[in-house]
């Protein structure tokens, strides 16, 4: 490590979202009510490019917070507005909140975007963009994906896809193109101007036992950068597939990673590309570690890939004695500092770490 900071949140979070001004947002997911949404100002050590070590201000500050009646499983800021959207069980509806940090430090609940009631435990996955207007893309199943205008709550688009598989993630590629990933591994591209048309990427290899998939996309300020960056699909068995969106009929790469089978299924499976380091990918959700990989030498042979770095901090952090080692719930890359990541675990810990490139690699 070049640097490692550990913090303890009052309640564990399963999301870490970046907001304007280098703010970071976390939210509670445990209780049935009284979960807190916290927008944090990171310590100056993280805001500057240089690592300072003994900086006087080393703490996160809660800039503002809100109270959610339901557990918060997903949260996205709506670009160019002071709004954010959250979702969580027991249903697919979305909650819209207003952040006005200058006036008060309370994040206020503004409205709810309701959806047709669904059977099952699903909650909506969300993505936001503000191209033509502030939009939120949401849905829990492939055939129930919609785009809703955030302020007017008007429905702008609905998928017409066949298949009712559960979604594990969705994203805007640009203001017209959507990327939808199902828990089965099915990856689809949709053009909102042509709702009937759905391009599918090559399917993942079928597995002997049940396997869940999630996708990893490059984080951008507004939706995603165009399809130059491959999309990663990660399975609960540790398979990683990279697909170039310009050539969806084949795999760019297919590797196996050595990970333990996750205790809680695919609930916290997470994969993300480094915004400032070409070809670096991080994965987590299997245990108390976060793995960082250099994908530049990968091919589609299916061989095993070795991580460049493993962050083990959360596994040691635990209160001890309880027997359950903490599980990493989410991780994210720092937007400017190339090797800095933030990760959170089920015991409420929040780590900020800066890893060093091992010798022999450049």
């Amino acid at each position: 490590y070049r640097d490692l900071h550990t913090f303890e949140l009052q309640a564990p979070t399963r999301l870490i979202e970046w907001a304007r001004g280098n703010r970071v947002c976390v939210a509670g997911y445990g209780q049935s009510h009284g979960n807190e949404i916290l927008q944090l100002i990171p310590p100056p050590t993280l805001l500057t490019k240089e690592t300072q070590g003994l900086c006087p201000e080393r703490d996160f500050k809660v800039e503002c917070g809100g109270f959610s009646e339901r557990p918060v499983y997903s949260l996205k800021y709506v670009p160019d507005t002071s709004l954010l959207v959250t979702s969580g069980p027991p249903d697919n509806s979305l909650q819209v909140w207003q952040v006005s940090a200058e006036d008060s430090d309370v994040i206020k609940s503004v409205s709810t975007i309701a959806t047709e009631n669904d059977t099952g435990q699903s909650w909506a996955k969300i993505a936001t963009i503000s191209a033509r207007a502030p939009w939120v893309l949401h849905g829990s199943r492939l055939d129930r994906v919609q785009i809703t205008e955030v302020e007017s709550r008007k429905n702008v688009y609905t998928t017409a896809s066949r298949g009712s598989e559960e979604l594990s993630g969705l994203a805007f590629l640009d203001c017209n193109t959507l990327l939808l990933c199902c828990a089965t591994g099915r990856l689809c591209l949709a053009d909102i101007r042509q709702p009937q048309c759905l391009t599918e990427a090559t399917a993942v290899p079928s597995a002997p036992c049940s396997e869940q998939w999630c996708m990893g996309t490059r984080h951008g300020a507004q939706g995603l950068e165009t399809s130059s960056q491959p999309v990663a699909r990660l399975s609960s068995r540790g398979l990683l597939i990279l697909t170039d969106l310009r050539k969806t009929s084949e795999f760019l790469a297919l590797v196996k990673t050595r990970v333990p089978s996750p205790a809680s299924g695919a609930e916290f499976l997470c994969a993300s590309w480094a915004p400032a380091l070409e070809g670096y990918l991080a994965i987590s959700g299997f245990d108390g570690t976060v793995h960082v990989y250099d994908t530049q030498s990968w091919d589609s042979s299916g061989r095993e890939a070795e991580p460049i770095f493993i962050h083990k901090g959360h596994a040691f952090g635990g209160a001890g004695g309880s027997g359950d080692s903490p599980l990493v719930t989410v991780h994210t890359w720092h937007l400017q500092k190339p090797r800095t990541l933030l990760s959170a675990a089920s015991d409420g810990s929040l780590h900020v770490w800066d890893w060093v490139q091992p010798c022999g690699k450049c």
Partner: protein
Amino acid sequence: GAGQDVGRSCILVSIAGKNVMLDCGMHMGYNDDRRFPDFSYITQNGRLTDFLDCVIISHFHLDHCGALPYFSEMVGYDGPIYMTHPTKAICPILLEDYRKITVDKKGETNFFTSQMIKDCMKKVVAVHLHQTVQVDEELEIKAYYAGHVLGAAMFQIKVGCESVVYTGDYNMTPDRHLGAAWIDKCRPDLLISESTYATTIRDSKRCRERDFLKKVHETVERGGKVLIPVFALGRAQELCILLETFWERMNLKAPIYFSTGLTEKANHYYKLFITWTNQKIRKTFVQRNMFEFKHIKAFDRAFADNPGPMVVFATPGMLHAGQSLQIFRKWAGNEKNMVIMPGYCVQGTVGHKILSGQRKLEMEGRQMLEVKMQVEYMSFSAHADAKGIMQLIRQAEPRNVLLVHGEAKKMEFLKQKIEQEFHVSCFMPANGETTTILTNPCIPVDISLGLLKRETAIGPLPDAKKPKLMHGTLLMKDNSFRLVSPEQALKELGLAEHQLRFTCRVHIQDPRKEHETVLRVYNHLKGILKDYSVQHLPDGSITVESILIQATAHSEDQGTKVLLVSWTYQDEELGSYLTSLLKKGLPQSTP
């Protein structure tokens, strides 16, 4: 108070007619009158001694006691000042130290003198933890352990059944030499808590310590010298324990020194106040003196010129005078060396200047000093964060919470959090603002055993969850309240008991003879009032429980019978019921 490090604490509480002043701090950022609290808020003309019942000081930090000598000797207060024993011992040292900087170095004139500090301390009454101290017949105070620094306490102020708890600065997590704050479920009407760190999510102590040790280690490894200016007491002990453990573990050989006088003084105070340190220290103290270190030796000023690496703890803490400044001047020119400032430095001191980035300093005699050594700052201050505040509220169970030291619009979230979780009101007044909190004082009343037995026997069985309505007479005499039965009250007061009896006339159309009417009424009532005792007496009257019914013919109209229904005050309910029942008339066919 302003800012997180330089708060100036001074809170006035009026409780059940008593006035208590909590803390008397100095604002370290100002050089004029604004550094002292404005005591004219308390009273414009009257003497402070007459108005205030007592003053309580929570701990020895200057932003909590720095204005005390000014207050007691220059403004004028002769009443009692309460603080814990360690605070009483250490306060005057810090006050004198501060007075020296302000007057001697900065040339201030309107400041308290050494004699004033001494005179002020003569008015101090020291208290022990968990000892109830009677300030006067009605006002009592009690100190609780607050962690934070040696001798810091949270105070409970109680008058009758109303109470307030003031936390001062506290810490809910133990550190190497102090325990965590603790309070019992005292359920005060109001809890006043500092909230400066409420919005902070702290970097773990391990990381802070690791970075500190890394810096020290790196400097020593390259042959440099590390200077750590400290106050006589406080973080110094914490850091010594930390370094000692590290040196032992890493088998390091470079010497660590502690200013002469400092060791003795520190040991003296810690031995004196061993009960104020944490559990671990108390246990090891029995085997060996925790503050006698294997790797840390007493310093001699000649050592500063020794070649090779070393670490030195020297006073005073802001590099404003004395040994630490001397050492600093010797070592400043070498970039291999390092100085680590462990806390806040007042403006005007060398410590403050180098932390602000100045690298060329003018010393005494117009000598310029170029600072090439590395300057680091680290804060190990121990305050409660949001989680700690919630923990304390959970422990004490107050009915109301008041937060001090925060910007109002930045505390809205914490206020809501407290209100939602504990269902209590939360207040955040600004400086100079008065907050009024309504209390529901409980008035204890003695109930006579006879009355209690009688009342519990009637009606539904007593239920722990439901209030039970009882009837009695409240006697208030000589500041005591008693609840007794009416008979008892009458006896005690020497009054005769009067019986109230009501009689009501009900007209019934019935041409038959009186005794037939009575029979009809009797049968009718017996049929309806199955749970009651209805009797037909030989003299022609009917009784329902203790209510009497008699029938007579109407004087003018033989077809009408007059029923006289008579009952005592105690049977009002049944009497009224019977009357309205009879008014409805008798059924046509009666068996």
